[in-house]
């Protein structure tokens, strides 16, 4: 009975447009009241949800990304990607995807990848004769790599509410990220050939190639810092993220001291907005988590899921369908916080490796960034291009299909996910 009331409160408040963080908060307070627990418990659990060391990596990675951005890294990455793939048909789209993949190893957020590359690339692509729809589609679909290729805000969230190691999740995201990236590149190439989009005709000289390569090197230090320490097992992810902030700060100060210090406060403020938005959801999820556990709702969801099937393949198929639907309707961080603690024990029961399960959920939720109606990256590009949600959604469709196919591959070939973490000894 309680669970039905809670579902109605949650669904009802979301439908009328209450921000998700507060829908969760209101639902949680109703839950505490229904369970006749002392209301101050809400404060304690809200605090408990936030008082987690690994969550601190979220504001740090957001900040590191913002700092690298005002240091001018985006332009450097785009120029570097031009050297690599600019001569393919539809070169700008290819550049975009490659730059997104590298940018994803600096930032852990899909929307920041979408807004950064969108504002840089869309005007240039327009100038070179690309349809804005196509450009927006490419950028939106490539931005989902942000939280798949480490670092990743969503992986940090998964790690903070389960016993899956964030470091192992980070490492496991590499191969899936590359698979999706290459899938997108092939799709963009096919479309570009059909529409006869331009490519870069001139060849770069030796000087250009080496110059652009050398300028891009500092960008590659970022993943080295983040993953090197975690790989070696000496750093926690949070410590690595703070070092990433320090590194980004130094890089910016050295590279363009005046512009960097002028834009520093703005970058800090933007990181605050992004981080606090996520932290507000996490805090409310702290109370919800308690309510769900205290009311044994988790147990009941688990039981009903297991009634359908105990076969791991069918289980994974159900998980994918479930999360693709959830991804359309909910904000990814909130969805993970509510559902993963309920479903992870099930995955373990039917014999799916928890790390594999975690990664499959993260990839699903990333695809959720570009599925309407609640596709945050679509909205970012609506804002940049002034196109309607419908048009951008249609432009994303071919790429979305490829990503779902890649998701299927990642789901049913667990070795793609588990190989690297095993190789470096993060899991058995």
């Amino acid at each position, binding site marked *: 009975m309680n669970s039905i009331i809670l579902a109605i409160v949650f669904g009802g408040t979301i*439908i009328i447009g209450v921000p998700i963080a507060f829908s969760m908060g209101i639902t949680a307070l109703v839950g505490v009241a229904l369970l006749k627990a002392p209301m101050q418990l809400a*404060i304690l659990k809200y605090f408990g949800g936030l008082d987690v060391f690994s969550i*601190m990596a979220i504001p740090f990675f957001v900040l590191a990304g913002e700092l690298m951005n005002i240091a001018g890294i985006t332009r450097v990455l785009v120029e570097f990607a031009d050297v690599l793939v600019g001569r393919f048909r539809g070169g700008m789209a290819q550049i975009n995807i490659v730059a997104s993949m590298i940018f994803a190893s600096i930032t852990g957020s899909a929307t920041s990848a979408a807004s950064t590359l969108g504002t840089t690339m869309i005007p240039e692509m327009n100038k070179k004769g690309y349809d804005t729809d196509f450009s927006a589609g490419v950028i939106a679909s490539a931005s989902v790599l942000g939280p798949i290729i480490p670092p990743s805000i969503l992986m940090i969230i998964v790690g903070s509410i389960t016993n899956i190691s964030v470091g192992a999740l980070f490492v496991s995201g590499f191969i899936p990220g590359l698979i999706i990236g290459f899938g997108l590149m092939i799709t963009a190439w096919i479309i570009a050939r059909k529409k006869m989009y331009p490519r870069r005709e001139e060849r770069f000289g030796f000087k250009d190639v080496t110059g652009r390569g050398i300028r891009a090197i500092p960008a590659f230090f970022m993943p080295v810092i983040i993953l090197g320490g975690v790989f070696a097992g000496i750093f926690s992810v949070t410590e690595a993220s*703070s070092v990433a902030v320090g590194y980004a700060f130094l890089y910016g100060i050295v590279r363009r001291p005046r512009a960097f210090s002028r834009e520093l406060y703005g970058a800090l403020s933007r990181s605050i907005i992004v981080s606090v938005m996520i932290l507000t959801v996490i805090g409310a999820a702290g109370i919800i988590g308690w309510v769900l556990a205290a009311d044994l709702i988790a147990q009941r969801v688990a039981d009903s899921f297991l009634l359908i099937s105990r076969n791991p393949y069918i289980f994974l198929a159900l998980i994918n369908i479930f999360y693709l639907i959830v991804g359309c309707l909910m904000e990814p961080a909130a969805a993970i916080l509510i559902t993963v603690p309920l479903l992870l024990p099930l995955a373990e029961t039917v014999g799916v490796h928890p790390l594999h399960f975690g990664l499959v959920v993260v990839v699903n939720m990333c695809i959720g960034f570009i599925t309407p109606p609640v596709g945050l990256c679509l909205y970012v590009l609506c804002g940049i291009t002034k196109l309607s949600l419908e048009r951008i959604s249609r432009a994303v469709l071919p790429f979305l299909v490829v990503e779902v196919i890649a998701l299927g591959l990642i789901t049913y070939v667990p070795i793609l996910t588990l190989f690297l973490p095993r190789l470096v000894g993060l899991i058995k």
Partner: protein
Amino acid sequence: MLHKFSSFLVKITNAFVVFLLCVMSADILLGVFFRYVLVKPLPWAEDLGRYLMVWIALFGVGIVMHHKAHVAVTICVDNIPPRARGVLLLFSKILVLAFGLFMGYLGVRFLAEMFPQISPTLHISMWWVYFAFPFYGFFLVVSTLDQIVEDAQQLRPKEREEVLGRG
């Protein structure tokens, strides 16, 4: 008047929270330095960092509300007649207002009744950590109230700004 006050408050809290973020970064970096370079870990660095983050999360809520950056699902309300939409949006904001009020009230009661507890590493009372909860309620209430007044003034709401989130 209210709008001015709310904007002023956001400006001040923004500077304060940015300051906290800088301290938090410096604190964790310092912890890393002491642990791995001097091999003499600071026992309080982690705790201080976590409490600073809690403060950022609580004090910052009004800023996010002010910039309308909390993720909301607007697809349903976007597809109904403007008049009804205005009413629903107003109602949804009143709910947020009520939530803020109640959380603030709970925060105050929590502080009043809380069992005295000292952080083992920082040697400060945990009271100071929970101290941010009444402010969470307060900032949320002020910025939401500001938006309610603004919405109510535009009797015929025009195309509402997309509520955009980043995550």
